[in-house]
């Protein structure tokens, strides 16, 4: 039986964070019932297309999916259980904001079947939380984490580092605090200034000051690796650290190039039909998506085959992010072509990658230059 993962995108937030370029929107009121129905009919549409699959993982992402009613989560999961085969070790994650109103729902989420929570803590001091546009305080975040840890076996949280005027010393102590709290999984993202965000606008006008320069951003990254490693939290991916066995199964699906369904506004998917890879994409505007789903206009959603070259390129771009690396035989099978030997050799000489038993991995220096390596191999 083929295996699939399901990503469910809830596109709404209470407020737009200044660093976020995700498909998230702020609305005064949302008719949860109407939205639930549309998620259910989308899932039914996919169940019809891919009926005989085993679901490895489900991930509620966003936006802020912890703004969904517990009833919505319940009905969506029931639909999935009804139409597909569900193994006992399925991982069902939900992203949540650590505010007091949201943490009240954790118990019922757990009852619905969510078994892994990912909290958007982002910082452990109020000054930085405010600068990052977050609506919670550090104290609230700690409380939310405590409530979560009572309700779920697995709780991860996100932190953003390389913030304005952050020093290496401050970050080190904050990270150590976080490690004290952790249940075995942390996502640690270096702040990236994206165009089309509030930070992006400020940055282009030179009004976002105190960000780490080239050299210190390398130091921030290396420090993060060092501290986590010393505390038994391994970097299984560029920004994800965990104790052995605590890896997020769902995200590994992406990084290992496995198929997944994308449900909800702007959600992307990758599916295989007759060994051919297809990409799917739903319209990103929430109201448009709702309208098209209500009218069963799934034919308007993007569903197109991608070339074997593109498939192979996606495999490299994703799998090189993993500590376990990529299998070059798998690449060759997908691409129907080999990686350029001279480039591989050059990268080995430059000590950016290693190649053993057909497994290509980035080195410690190479990890920081993953995009460069990808360009060298593919451009």
């Amino acid at each position: 039986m083929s295996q699939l993962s399901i990503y469910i995108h809830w596109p709404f937030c209470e407020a737009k964070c200044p660093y976020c370029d995700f498909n998230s929107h702020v609305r005064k009121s949302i008719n949860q019932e109407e939205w639930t129905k549309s998620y259910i009919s989308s899932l039914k549409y996919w169940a019809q297309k891919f009926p005989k699959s085993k679901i490895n993982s489900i991930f509620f992402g966003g936006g802020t999916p912890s703004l969904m009613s517990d009833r919505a989560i319940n009905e969506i999961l029931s639909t999935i259980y009804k139409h597909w085969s569900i193994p006992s070790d399925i991982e069902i994650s939900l992203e949540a904001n650590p505010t007091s109103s949201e943490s009240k729902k954790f118990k019922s989420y757990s009852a619905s079947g969510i078994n892994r929570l990912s909290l958007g803590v982002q910082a452990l001091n109020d000054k930085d939380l405010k600068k990052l546009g977050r609506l919670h305080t550090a104290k609230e975040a700690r409380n939310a984490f405590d409530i979560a840890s009572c309700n779920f076996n697995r709780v991860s949280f996100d932190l953003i580092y390389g913030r304005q005027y952050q020093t290496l010393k401050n970050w080190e102590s904050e990270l150590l605090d976080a490690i004290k709290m952790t249940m075995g999984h942390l996502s640690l993202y270096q702040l990236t200034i994206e165009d089309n965000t509030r930070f992006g606008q400020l940055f282009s006008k030179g009004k976002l000051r105190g960000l780490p320069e080239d050299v210190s951003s390398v130091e921030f990254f290396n420090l993060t690796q060092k501290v986590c490693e010393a505390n038994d939290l391994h970097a299984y991916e560029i920004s994800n650290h965990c104790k052995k066995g605590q890896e997020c199964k769902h995200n590994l699906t992406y990084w290992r190039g496995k198929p997944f369904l994308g449900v909800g506004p702007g959600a992307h998917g990758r599916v295989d039909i007759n060994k051919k890879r297809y990409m799917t994409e739903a319209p990103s505007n929430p109201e448009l998506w709702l309208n098209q789903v209500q009218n069963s206009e799934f034919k308007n959603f993007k569903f197109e085959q991608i070339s074997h070259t593109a498939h192979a390129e996606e495999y490299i771009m994703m799998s090189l992010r993993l500590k376990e690396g990529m299998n070059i035989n798998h690449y060759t099978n997908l691409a129907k072509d080999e990686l350029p030997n001279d480039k591989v050799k050059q990268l080995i000489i430059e000590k950016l990658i290693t190649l053993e038993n057909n497994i290509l991995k980035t080195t410690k220096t190479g990890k920081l230059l993953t995009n460069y390596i990808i360009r060298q191999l593919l451009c």
Partner: protein
Amino acid sequence: MAKFENIRNFSIVAHIDHGKSTLADRLIQLTNTVASRDMKEQILDSMDIERERGITIKANTVRLNYISKSGSEYILNLIDTPGHVDFSYEVSRSMKAVEGSLLVVDASQGVEAQTLANVYTAIDADHEIITVLNKVDLPAADCDRVAEQIEDVIGIDATDAVKISAKTGIGVENVLEAIVNKLPCPSGDIERPLKALLVDSWYDAYLGVVVMVRVKDGRLKKGDKILMMQTGATFTIDKVAVLKPQMENIEFLGPGEIGVFTASIKQVRDTRVGDTITLDRDQCIEPLTGYKPSQPVVFCGLFPVDSSEFEVLRSSIEKLALNDASFSFEMETSAALGFGFRCGFLGLLHLEVIRDRIEREYSIELITTAPSVIYQIFKTDGSMLELHNPADMPDAVKIDHIKEPRIKATILVPDEFLGDVLKLCQDRRGIQNDLTYAGARAMVVYDLPLNEVVFDFHDRLKSVTKGYASFDYQITGYSADQLVKMQILVNDEPVDALSTMVHRARSEARGRVMCEKLKELIPQHMFKVPIQASIGGRIIARETISALRKDVTAKCYGGDMTRKRKLLDKQKAGKKRMRQFGRVEIPQEAFIKALKTNE
């Protein structure tokens, strides 16, 4: 053939956007020359580039039939001339083909620099000039002020100016009346041997080369064997026609008439603007005066972005050259850019037009190197070398002195920007010759080195004056100055395509700016990349691009795959546009952007 007194030949002089093409359109419509269903805007501008830029590059002509208010029938020949300084020689020949000009001035804007040069060319050609004030329907129109300005600045009587709006059609009839009443009729002798002025020519895929002529004496008819007096070439006429503006065959062209002929001519190069055409058997005694072979003034290298397209570039350049005798080319090799061509142009507009046409009509992406002027290198052995390309500069010890071309630049600018304009000219080694006022606008005349103007002077002028200045120039001659060749070294290797000639006093500042620019333009590599500017082995400026240490995406999940792949596709395309130079990759746009100054 019509009698001389029923023929009027004229051209229109105007600044860009002052309504020359619209007026021509109206005249064509009013005389019912073109059926209204066939009418389109800027009907005389046939090239896409002409329409898009609102400029005229090739001369064109149209014959209008007009019955005046007094009831006489007239033939009016309008020659539409290029307005730009690059084509000043072509303009002067067009002017020699007619007896009068309409000076069209926007009644809300007033006289512009470009108008001046062309109106003086018309005056030099002994034209009778009719002043036309256009756009009188605009609220900002001020006919009295502009008429006064015309009298002050140009020195011609504007009291009888015809006030029109070419857009709405107001007053255009009066222009036709003024043409027949005020312009002189042509003269000539039909019994004398053929003497005709070659005004312009162009290549037509079906007809071969079409030649536009003005007959002075004699007649030009089908079957005649003609002689081009300057080139000595002979051809037999296939077809004689007038343009309305479609070709309409006629039996012959007589004195005072303007028309076209074809004679199985394969290349435009065989037809020189300004040449005198006569009969091979019955030659006129003296050719017309004023002929000049065309001389390129500005040179630059054109290289294909994708080096495998060199042969395509060669054939497209050869084809374009068939249709443009004023453009020269020879093969060039550059260590940085590979194979390409060193091309000579009449000026910057001409350069841009040719480059656009190659990119557009032949779909070749080009790298254009910095435009350069012709330097006269006087060597210690007494010989003189014309330098078209700084890369070919002889060893400094063999050079006695260097001369560079200078221009007389005329700039008209609103008072409030005058300070900025003076500073710009001063910074470009200009010497002020004149500064006068015409109303709220100043007219400054500067003596400037052409090499300070060919690159981004016009852009800078537009930017410091918010587009309110107009600018024109004439080449005045050569003079000696302290010129040196500045080289740019990237990762310790000289990059030939970035070599430029600069004035010694400005070299350090220029070098610094170029190094700073290149630091932004060249991507980071895995190693440090030094960028240096040097003069004769002495380093005058230096920047360093630090080594790439971090390039990694923090967040990358399922929803990011498509976006990442699109980015990769873009990077692949960018890679094609890179030029490998030693171990360093230089993006092609760097070769031109590095030279732009933001002073």
